[in-house]
């Protein structure tokens, strides 16, 4: 099960993300499958950050702790990560940038910056030198990298393109000898068309495919990528993305837009989501569809802005005062990020309620190569909308009672009928009331919708063996780690099953099956108190045999799970 990993470390502003992105393109172009993630600090310059790429001839879903090639643009990379090097691995470093030279077979000095000077090129091309040096460990063909550099810098003119290509070749040559120590990663037999994306590309793509027409948002890491993606596609897709002055404005603008009959959304992180809770109750009470992405990061409070955790689960599920219909989805990977945005909008409009989508920094920023999305499989269901003669009916009541609790929704202005809506408790006509009978009837009507919502709750995804000795249960972006952990267990001859939950409210009854059987079930998640474990207990009255919890701001992976499961018993 060997895979090849490259870890590039440096200070913010040194260009390590550029190096990473160039390599991702070249690696994908050569047909490899990849999983890449980033670790960065909340700053624009300095600090210590890294970009890690895992490469294989088969699909990858998570990262590995050790690297084959460690690339140091700063000294901290060596200090912090030299112990993660695999046996026989190589540490490429620029002595000039790092500030010293190292003894030891694994250390290979390649002067990225000095090379640009020697070649008479601008210093910023040191990135291309580094790319070339790294490429030597991956491929026999330097021209592939040169082509990627050309595509990337085409708009900067011929000289820049030629310069980058030239210095990358020099970097390649300087690393060639050391590169022969390691076998090159095996390529898949055929090159398939793929999409190279991260979660913050997939989520907005899914929203746009599902017909989102209005977004309002306030920037907050790690959701800002979604906001800027939509902002950049306004003209192309006929969407309006309006920056709001704060998160309260963001959610209320989206609700105002949704009220007129457009698919509307916002995106934020935990601290911003906190500001939206009153409005989510409004959406529930006034029965206005809206989709909200909560891209989690570690709390509490401002926490670790650029890192990852799943600690908003309970407060997202329980959001808003009082009881009202809602749903919370938790995509586990790029494919689900795309698909579940469409699911979210359909649920929101079919049931006229708010739907939350839980993302997190790891899902947001991790890249994978995935199969192109099937746009023909995307369905758009606007729910019960008042059209034709009914739109002119002066007797129209926005909150009319019905068997399933869903009242036909009039887009204001679409006919002569009037739509009257309120957050205060109201009667069928939408006007304010306080009497016990109407209050009870309206509450019953709204909550009746939850019966149907619950019936279509997404079933969990099962991996691995039935009748397992070890069952792992997780939600959201832990999916990749879960999947590979199951494979690692199976490779140790342990019957293992993984249960990935992609809708955390309401939850499908099949999830309880994870706790059946003769084996032991463990809940794997990123939060201190085990919020998912608590939610499962509340919903299904189940208790796992144990758990794995991470709360240091770093993402889970398969190795971490095995390291911590039952005190490391399955470490292997």
């Amino acid at each position, binding site marked *: 099960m060997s895979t090849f990993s490259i870890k590039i470390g440096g200070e913010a502003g040194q260009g390590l993300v550029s190096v990473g992105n160039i390599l991702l393109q070249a690696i994908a172009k050569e047909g490899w499958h990849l999983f890449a993630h980033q670790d960065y600090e909340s700053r624009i310059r300095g600090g210590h950050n890294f970009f890690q790429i895992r490469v294989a001839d088969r699909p990858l879903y998570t990262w590995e702790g050790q690297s084959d090639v460690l690339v140091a643009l700063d000294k901290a990379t060596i200090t912090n990560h030299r112990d993660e090097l695999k046996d026989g691995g190589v540490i490429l470093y620029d002595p000039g940038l790092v500030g010293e030279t190292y003894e030891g077979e694994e250390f290979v000095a390649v002067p990225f910056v000095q090379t640009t000077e020697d070649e008479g090129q601008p210093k910023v091309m040191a990135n291309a030198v580094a790319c070339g040096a790294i490429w030597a460990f991956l491929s026999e063909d330097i021209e592939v990298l040169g082509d990627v550099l050309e595509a990337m810098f085409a708009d900067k003119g011929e000289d820049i393109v030629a310069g980058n290509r030239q210095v990358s070749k020099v970097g390649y040559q300087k690393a060639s000898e050391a590169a022969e120590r390691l076998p090159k990663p095996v390529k898949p037999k055929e090159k398939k068309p793929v999409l190279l994306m991260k979660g913050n590309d997939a989520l907005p*793509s899914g929203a746009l495919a599902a017909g989102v027409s209005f977004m309002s948002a306030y920037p907050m890491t790690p959701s800002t990528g979604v906001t800027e993606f939509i902002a950049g596609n306004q003209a192309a897709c006929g969407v*309006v993305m*309006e920056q709001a002055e704060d998160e309260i*404005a963001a959610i209320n603008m989206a609700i*105002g837009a949704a009220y007129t009959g457009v698919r509307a959304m916002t995106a934020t992180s935990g601290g911003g989501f906190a500001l939206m809770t009153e409005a989510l109750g409004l959406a529930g009470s006034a029965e206005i569809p809206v989709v909200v992405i909560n891209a989690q990061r570690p709390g509490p409070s401002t926490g670790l802005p650029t890192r990852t955790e799943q600690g908003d689960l309970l407060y997202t599920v329980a959001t808003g005062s009082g009881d009202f219909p809602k749903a919370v989805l938790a995509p586990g990977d790029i494919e689900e990020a795309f698909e579940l945005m469409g699911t979210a909008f359909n649920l929101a409009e079919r049931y006229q309620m708010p739907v939350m989508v839980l993302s997190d920094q790891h899902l947001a920023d991790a890249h994978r190569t995935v199969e192109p999305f099937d746009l023909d499989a995307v369905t758009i269901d606007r729910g019960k909308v008042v059209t034709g003669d009914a739109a002119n009916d002066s007797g129209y009541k926005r909150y009319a009672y019905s068997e399933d609790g869903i009242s036909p929704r009039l887009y*204001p202005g679409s006919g*002569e009928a009037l739509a009257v*809506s309120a957050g205060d408790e109201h009667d069928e006509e939408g006007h304010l009331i306080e009497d016990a009978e109407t209050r009870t009837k309206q509450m019953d009507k709204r909550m009746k919708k939850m019966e149907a919502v619950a019936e279509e709750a997404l079933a969990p995804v099962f991996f691995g063996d039935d009748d397992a000795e070890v069952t792992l249960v997780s939600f959201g972006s832990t999916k990749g780690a879960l999947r590979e952990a199951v494979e690692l267990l199976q490779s140790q001859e342990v019957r293992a099953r993984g249960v990935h939950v992609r809708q955390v409210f309401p939850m499908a009854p099949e999830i309880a099956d994870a706790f059946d059987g003769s084996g032991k079930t463990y809940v794997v998640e990123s939060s201190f108190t085990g919020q998912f474990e608590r939610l499962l207990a509340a919903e299904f009255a189940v208790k796992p045999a144990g758990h794995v919890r991470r709360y240091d701001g770093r993402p889970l992976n398969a190795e971490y799970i095995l390291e911590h499961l039952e005190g490391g018993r399955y470490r292997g």
Partner: protein
Amino acid sequence: MANFDVLKETAWCPGCGNFGIINALKEALEGLDMEKHKVLYVSGIGQAGKVPHYIEGNVLNTLHGRTLPTATGAKLANSDLAVFAIGGDGDGYAEGGNHFLHATRKNVDITYIVHDNRVFGLTKGQASPTTDPGMVTGTTPEGVVNAAFNPLAVAITNDTGFVARSYAGDRKHLVKTLQAAIQHKGFSFVDVLQPCVTFNKINTYQWYRERVYDLNEEDFDPTNRTAAWERSFEWGDRIPIGIFYQVERPVLRADDKALAKGPLVQRDLDPHIVDSVLDKYRVNP
């Protein structure tokens, strides 16, 4: 001509300034030949927030303080609707303060009417941002000490394209002002001075009658921002009402490419719209 029926039975006290405002609104809308189903009132929470429940039209009675972002979202999604944001001084200047600060910068084409009775009515008499210093209320038993909020000055500072003040006790002036606000293209802000007969014993009908005058009947240039700003601080013995500032500014997203084919609400939704968006991410297509 459409008739904007007004409900006789309301939750307001007899003599409430809201009656003057709602009747002026009715007259203004009918005078401009507006169509009921093309009007959307977005109101907040408070006595003023009840206005749309008493006059015909589409209604979204939203949260306390949030009329402006809600109305902005609605207008951007469906520019065919005439969108009104309606609320009181507590709703608009306290809870909604940040939204006021920024909506007055964005020239979204809505009309914002504030029922400024300089007190919190629905919650029974606490001070609001526009309560004059010295007034004793349930939360300020020693008398208000903070400087009164000056919404006109803030709007003028933000170069809002239509900034006006009117008075609930002067029907003619209010109708005229509301109509000018509705017809102005862009964000139109009208602060309506309003007596609260139950909780504000200082700013009464009598009190206003002795002080209010129409500044547009004097030699006043409403395109002069500095003059408008200075005049907005005139308060006490003489209280100017009228259009303080009016200029043409580009309406928010009037030329937006995304809206070139018409209001968002009329879009055809087709998943294949992302085909070209995804091209950027394809490798080995």
